[in-house]
């Protein structure tokens, strides 16, 4: 039963382009996250967003920015993508920071 929806499933783009990924959760959770999963399946947290409070992992490059219109939506924008941005981007939501509910991810390929 999917409750965290991500679009698109896949995206192929060229170096330097801007991309934007969407995420919506229907669980009524207060907190949403973006994770990056690389080719070795390592999960790295990028952002957490709760009640308009944004927490950023300090290792995330500035070309990445989250965008939220309400607590059910947290989109991810990448300005000027680079080859190392190729990965699966996973959105998640939680009501207690312990149990995360993940979407199925957006696979980004940068040529």
């Amino acid at each position: 039963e999917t409750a965290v929806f991500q679009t698109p499933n896949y995206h192929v783009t060229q170096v330097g382009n801007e991309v934007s990924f969407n995420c919506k959760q229907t669980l009524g959770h207060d907190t949403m996250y973006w994770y990056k999963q690389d080719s070795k399946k390592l999960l790295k947290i990028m952002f957490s967003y709760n009640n308009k409070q944004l927490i950023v992992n300090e290792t995330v490059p500035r070309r990445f920015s989250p965008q939220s219109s309400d607590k059910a939506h947290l989109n991810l924008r990448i300005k000027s993508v680079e080859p190392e941005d190729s990965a699966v981007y996973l959105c998640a939501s939680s009501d207690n920071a312990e149990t995360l509910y993940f979407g199925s991810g957006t696979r980004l390929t940068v040529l």
Partner: protein
Amino acid sequence: QQQVRQSSQSLTVWEGETAILNCSYENSAFDYFPWYQQFPGEGPALLIAIRSVSDKKEDGRFTIFFNKREKNLSLHIKDSQPGDSATYFCAASPPSGSWQLIFGSGTQLTVMP
């Protein structure tokens, strides 16, 4: 600095065997340890979790054994099935107030029929 370590990148067992996936952690303040299961093309999903006040948590064929003194835990999958083939992530959470779970690097389990 890897705060949560999974010693095996991959593990292969035969159908019907018990698969044992190991995990260790560095920070003794961690008090909640979930295991997530991820199938190809999907996001991780919570499988089973334990708190540091317990030494064992069982849910069907899945059992977590937890050793607080040694700072390690293991996930045992009894009577492994081919459908259990997936990547398993150990994670840890500091006491409430922290904003994130810390994930290990994952163990890819293959159950051969």
